[in-house]
């Protein structure tokens, strides 16, 4: 298609019962949300569950979206709320220690589309390092780091998505960087 259909048009059609429009909208953002969930949960199964819960919540709240801001910001706010709930629930009911490597992590990620084994290994290694570092942060700090460094939202947008004041967001980011410092230093020593 020469001109992609706007989010608002797809939302309007989805609200009128068009499953195809909803699938297009999900397809447009699912990779973003899935990788976000992957970094936040450190486990692909949890990431899938969280992503599905997020999209379910987005769909149910779709009638309340009034197009005042970007759909991506609104969608990520719902995803952030779901993520916080998910992480709090996971912290209360731990099934796997964050320090422990999951079976998936020991075996490595599914191979990306590359024929170079070293390149594949390097990419997987980078992702594992990032997820390992993110796992050291408390959920609120992890969320701020994710939204700031990976989603590149402004502090105001992060404050809108997390529902806390801008100064709190900045403080959380500073504290998260303090905490990440130790992790990075340990990795550099190793």
């Amino acid at each position, binding site marked *: 298609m020469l001109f992609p259909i706007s989010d608002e048009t797809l939302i309007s059609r989805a609200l009128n019962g068009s499953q195809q429009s909803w699938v297009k909208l999900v397809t447009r953002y699912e990779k973003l949300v899935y*990788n976000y969930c992957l970094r936040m949960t450190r486990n692909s199964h949890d990431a899938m569950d969280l992503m599905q819960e997020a999209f379910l919540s987005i769909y149910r709240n779709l009638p309340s979206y009034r197009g005042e801001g970007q759909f991506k910001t609104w969608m990520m706010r719902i995803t952030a709320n779901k993520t916080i709930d998910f992480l709090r629930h996971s912290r209360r009911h731990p099934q796997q220690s964050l320090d422990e490597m999951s079976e998936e992590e020991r075996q490595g990620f599914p191979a990306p589309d590359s024929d170079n084994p070293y390149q594949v290994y390097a*990419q997987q290694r*980078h992702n594992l390092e990032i997820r390992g570092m993110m796992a050291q942060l408390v959920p609120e700090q992890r969320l701020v*780091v994710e939204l700031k460094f990976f989603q590149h939202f402004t502090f105001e947008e992060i404050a809108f998505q997390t529902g806390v004041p801008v100064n709190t967001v900045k403080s959380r*980011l500073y504290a998260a960087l303090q905490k990440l410092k130790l992790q990075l230093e340990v990795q550099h020593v190793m």
Partner: protein
Amino acid sequence: MSCDHQLITDYLDAYIKGTLDPVLRKKCDEALLQCGRCHECHARALEFCHLSGQWEEQDVPSWHRVRYAVKPRQQYNWLSWTALATSCLTLVLVVGKVEVSADRGLMISFGGQQSEARVQARVAQQLEMFRTVEKQVLETRFADFSQKQNSANLLLLADWQNRNRQERRQDMEFLMTSWERQRFQDRRQTDERLSYLAQNQIDSDQYLNELLRTADNR
């Protein structure tokens, strides 16, 4: 110089992006030089910016994009709308006293008119039945009464004839008795007269005989 880290906390992002105005940028430069924690924070932020760029986007495993959202919603909508429509219909039927009948074709009435008409028809039918039964009872009673009246009339007539006959018999007996008494009296008078005549005759005969004998004797 003590640092409360507030400057770097507030402007670290803008400092890294290079969007700070020169005055604030200079203050941040000084803070980063003087405060070790702020300096390390800045360095880690830069490292993390670099590291985040190395994230290899993972493909989403295959999943059902509609099952988790659209389908339950459609079921929910269908069920809720059906339930709402049924409730409203029931409410209208109850409040409006709507009645549907198929006795004489399809009839829909409001306000209980149909039941009222049905009650009236039922009452009329019962009245008609009552009227018929009462008419039969009255006819039977009239027939019985007429029959009894005829019987009574016949009995009265027979009694009257009987009485009349007795009266005439009594009259006849009285007449006969009177006639016989009169005849008896007449006969007795006749007998008396005949006796008297016979006595007179006897006396006359005796007188004549006497005379004759006297005459003979003479």
